[in-house]
């Protein structure tokens, strides 16, 4: 286990300690303890910068399931380092912010920080894993922890709804992604992404290539809230604001983008990839920004804006894939698309993070997030206003902020689609710049709504729940840091381009580089009178016009009927599937054990007798039978007699005792066959279970008249005779078919030497097959807790009723 693995697992370890700290130090906000971890991790990851800058990578692996090629591989290159820094850096700021946001008196902080740390660790695991299976495991862990975080205020119905929705959609995507991973590993015979990338030439002509790609993209799209799966993200806004800032803008939703970027070297040679990723992305950009304008909740606006910005980055990755088809590096404007994707990813994390925190402050200090009630906060909350202006203007793509730079590069990438002459992009490719421009108009529009509807106009104090005032300093630190990053990156973008962007782009497009070569990125604010500049100018003009005439044209949003929205389909689907499964369950779950046993037995008879006949497995060999002694005959007779007594007994006591008699007789058989261990166990189990029967004997009803009179039932007789016959047939053929030599010889030889014991049965139980035993006692414990739960729960419910 290396230090790198420790870094990935440290949040999980910390999560164990947090509840204890919460209990021990009630006076100190638990967040202060938690804060240490992301800061340390951030500093730790910073030291890898010089390494990735030289396009070197680090790989450390420990075995997990070596026989299947599954390992926990920590892999650092430009891309994973960029994400690790985002996760820990933004994580630290979010924790700092949450200390002031969540009150230590009212909230169950230990839960919150455990979930948050779990999430942080899972996310680090996703971006640092080279092994597909461990990546998948961490991926689903992010879904689970985000489910817990969204449902953090679980007493609210909307929170539970949002949590369930996000869980259903992202886990659905995750499972199909697992399918894609398995197909990939089938093609390349490895789970390592590195090795898969090395085999691209063989893989890309494989017939499973496209299915694997589409399945994996499904996972990426659901996680990154692309159209039409974005519907969970607005509902996820029920989570506390620090969570929204962290998961739903800066990190988790970018996991899908990470995955697309990470697997680009494998899939980007395909036209399908370019089209699917590009079109889904650009349409999500348009659709998200279009819908953001009609929102009245500040967080709702930000949610839709995140959806659209994720679409923007996604479309850039799609278009950037074209770089692989044009093999000249110096003048390759498709590289710019990938570069813009990476750059915008960073920028989005900074400005969206600060905006979410800003909204959290507004919510915290005024008690509402509804823009119809807000207004005029500029004079009372000047610092928050400044943060809002910086964040929103950057989001709108205005100079001199960092959003402007990446937006210009985005336009460059989209316009360059027109120069492509592959995969029919020369005709339909016009879609990209057009949708990009329209989307940007709406982006500009909602950014302006966000700032001006909240902070300018008349202050309506009477409509607010609290009297607004500026937030405490602690709450302002994190958004201020992020906002200043927005400005710094705006003025000096190249501090990022040499250290972070170049290595990240290099790991997305590795095949473009020959050894020793590196991308040279130079971002400059002024790029001449290019089409991009005119696009920006025109969108600002149109945006201002639209903003001023907002009330006149927003009616178009009402044109779309509620019944056709995706949310409506989702809700209907949920209701229908619930009703359907209810109906299905009610038909076969009758509540009688008798019925369930009938199902089990029928399947048992059917499958086993089919196999016996179909495989021609039945064989009878009487040549090596042991002699039957007097004892055996007597015992067999006793067993038969006991069983018959159970059938004809008139009272439960008689049947229980005769059942016990059968059990004891079986243990006598074990004695005769020289298996003292089994005999002992059987004897004690029989005793305890008869005693248990006698204990609950009190509560059992007497055998009722109805049951007594039930008499002969044909189907029951058939089933029991069938079970008996099948078992006998299996026993006879098991005796007659000697396919393999018995394994007992191995144990006889090795029990003493390898395990130092003489009792073979016991050695097998604790040593040779200790794993079995371990899980058996787990099953036993679960059974005990299950019985406890069922009986106790029923009792309390009866008391309430």
């Amino acid at each position, binding site marked *: 286990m290396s230090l790198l693995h420790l870094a990935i697992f440290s949040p999980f370890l910390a999560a164990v300690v947090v509840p204890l700290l919460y209990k021990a130090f009630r006076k100190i906000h638990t967040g202060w303890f938690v804060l240490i971890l992301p800061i340390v991790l951030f500093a730790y990851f910073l030291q890898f910068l010089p390494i990735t800058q030289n396009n070197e990578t680090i790989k450390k692996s420990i075995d997990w399931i070596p026989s299947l090629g599954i390992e926990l591989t920590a892999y650092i290159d430009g891309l994973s380092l960029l994400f690790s820094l985002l996760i820990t850096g933004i994580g630290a700021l979010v924790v700092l912010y949450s200390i002031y946001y969540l009150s230590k008196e009212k909230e169950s902080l230990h839960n919150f920080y455990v979930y948050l740390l779990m999430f942080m660790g899972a996310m680090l695991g996703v971006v640092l894993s080279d092994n597909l299976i461990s990546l998948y495991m961490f991926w689903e862990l992010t879904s689970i922890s985000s489910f817990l975080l969204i449902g953090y205020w679980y007493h609210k119905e909307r929170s539970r709804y949002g949590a369930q929705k996000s869980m259903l959609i992202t886990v659905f995507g995750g499972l199909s992604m697992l399918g894609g991973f398995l197909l990939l590993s089938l093609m390349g015979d490895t789970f390592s992404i590195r090795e898969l990338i090395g085999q691209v030439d063989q893989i890309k002509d494989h017939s499973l290539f496209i299915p694997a790609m589409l399945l994996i993209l499904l996972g990426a799209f659901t996680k990154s809230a692309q159209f039409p799966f974005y519907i969970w993200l607005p509902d996820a806004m029920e989570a506390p604001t620090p969570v929204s800032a962290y998961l739903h803008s800066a990190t988790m939703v970018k996991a899908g983008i990470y995955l697309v970027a990470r697997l680009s070297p494998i899939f980007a040679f395909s036209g399908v990839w370019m089209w699917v990723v590009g079109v889904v992305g650009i349409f999500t950009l348009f659709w998200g920004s279009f819908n953001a304008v009609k929102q009245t909740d500040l967080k709702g606006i930000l949610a839709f804006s995140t959806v659209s910005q994720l679409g923007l980055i996604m479309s850039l990755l799609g278009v950037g894939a074209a770089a692989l088809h044009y093999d000249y590096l110096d003048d390759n404007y498709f590289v710019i698309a990938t570069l813009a994707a990476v750059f915008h990813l960073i920028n989005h994390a900074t400005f969206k993070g600060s905006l979410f925190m800003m909204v959290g402050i507004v919510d915290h200090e005024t008690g509402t997030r509804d823009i119809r009630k807000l207004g005029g906060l500029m004079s009372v909350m000047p610092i928050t206003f400044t943060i809002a202006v910086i964040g929103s203007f950057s989001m709108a793509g205005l100079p001199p902020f960092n959003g402007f730079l990446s937006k210009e590069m985005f336009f460059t990438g989209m316009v360059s689609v027109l120069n492509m002459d592959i995969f029919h992009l020369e005709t339909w490719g016009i879609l990209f710049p057009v949708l990009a421009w329209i989307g940007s108009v709406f982006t500009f529009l909602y950014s302006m709504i966000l700032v001006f509807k909240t902070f300018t106009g008349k202050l309506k104090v009477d409509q607010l729940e609290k009297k607004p005032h500026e937030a405490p300093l602690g709450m302002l630190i994190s958004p201020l840091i992020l906002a200043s990053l927005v400005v710094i990156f705006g003025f000096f973008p190249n501090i990022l381009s040499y250290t972070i962007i170049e290595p990240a782009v290099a790991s997305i497009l590795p095949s473009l580089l020959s050894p020793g070569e590196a991308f040279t990125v130079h971002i400059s604010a002024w790029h001449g009178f290019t089409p991009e500049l005119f696009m920006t100018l025109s969108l600002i003009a149109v945006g201002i016009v639209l903003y001023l005439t907002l009330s006149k044209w927003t009616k178009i949003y009402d044109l779309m009927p509620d019944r056709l929205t995706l949310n409506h389909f989702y809700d209907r689907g949920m209701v229908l599937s619930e009703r359907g499964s209810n109906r299905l369950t009610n038909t076969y779950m009758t509540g009688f054990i008798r019925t369930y046993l009938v199902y089990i037995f029928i399947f048992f008879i059917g499958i086993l007798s089919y196999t016996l006949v179909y495989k021609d497995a039945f064989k009878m060999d009487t040549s090596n039978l042991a002699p039957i002694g007097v004892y055996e005959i007597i015992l067999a007779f006793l067993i038969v007699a006991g069983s018959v007594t159970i059938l004809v007994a008139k009272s439960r006591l008689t049947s229980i005792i005769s059942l016990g008699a059968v059990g004891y007789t079986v243990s006598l058989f074990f004695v005769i066959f020289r298996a*003292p*261990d089994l005999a*002992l*166990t059987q004897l*004690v*189990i029989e*005793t*305890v279970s008869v*005693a*248990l029967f*006698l*204990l*609950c004997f*009190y*509560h059992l009803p007497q055998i009722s008249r109805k049951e007594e009179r039930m008499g002969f039932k044909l189907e029951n007789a058939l089933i029991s005779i069938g079970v008996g016959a099948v078992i006998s047939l299996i026993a006879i053929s098991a005796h007659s078919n000697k396919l393999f030599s018995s394994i007992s010889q191995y144990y006889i030889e090795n029990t003493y030497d390898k*395990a*130092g*014991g*003489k*009792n073979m*049965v*016991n*050695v097998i*139980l*604790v*040593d040779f097959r*200790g*794993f079995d*035993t*371990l899980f058996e*006692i*787990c099953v*036993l*414990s679960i*059974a*005990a*807790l299950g*019985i*406890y739960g069922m*009986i*106790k729960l*029923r*009792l309390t419910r009866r008391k309430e009723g």
Partner: protein
Amino acid sequence: MKTNDLILQTTAKVIFFIIILFSLHIFFAGHYNPGGGFIGGLMTSGAIVLLLLAFDLKTVATIFTFDFKILIAIGLLFAAGTATGALFFNAPLLTHAFEYFHLPLLGKTSLHTAVLFDTGVYLVVIGVTMTIIQTIGESE
């Protein structure tokens, strides 16, 4: 739940300890002779069940005041802990170690980590059977 049964109660008191001792013997004998954690645990719970039958649930609950569910947890910890312990010595999961020692009074004795694992089994078995019997017995 039951009438006074003097003979059963008096014998139960004596026999209880004999059974417990025997179950301990069986537990420790496990590696070389018939026995082990599973049977030992079952027999111990058998002894407690005998008390249950001779007296009643409430009386027994005053003797064993602890919660049998916690016993399950402790047992699982023992078993899982022994299982994972091997990982710290760079051995695969569940690798057991044993060594022969000369102990005072006992002479040459072998000490096994398997005993720790078996202790887990022993405790879980007692916990499970007693939890089930108690919950079913208590339910009205």
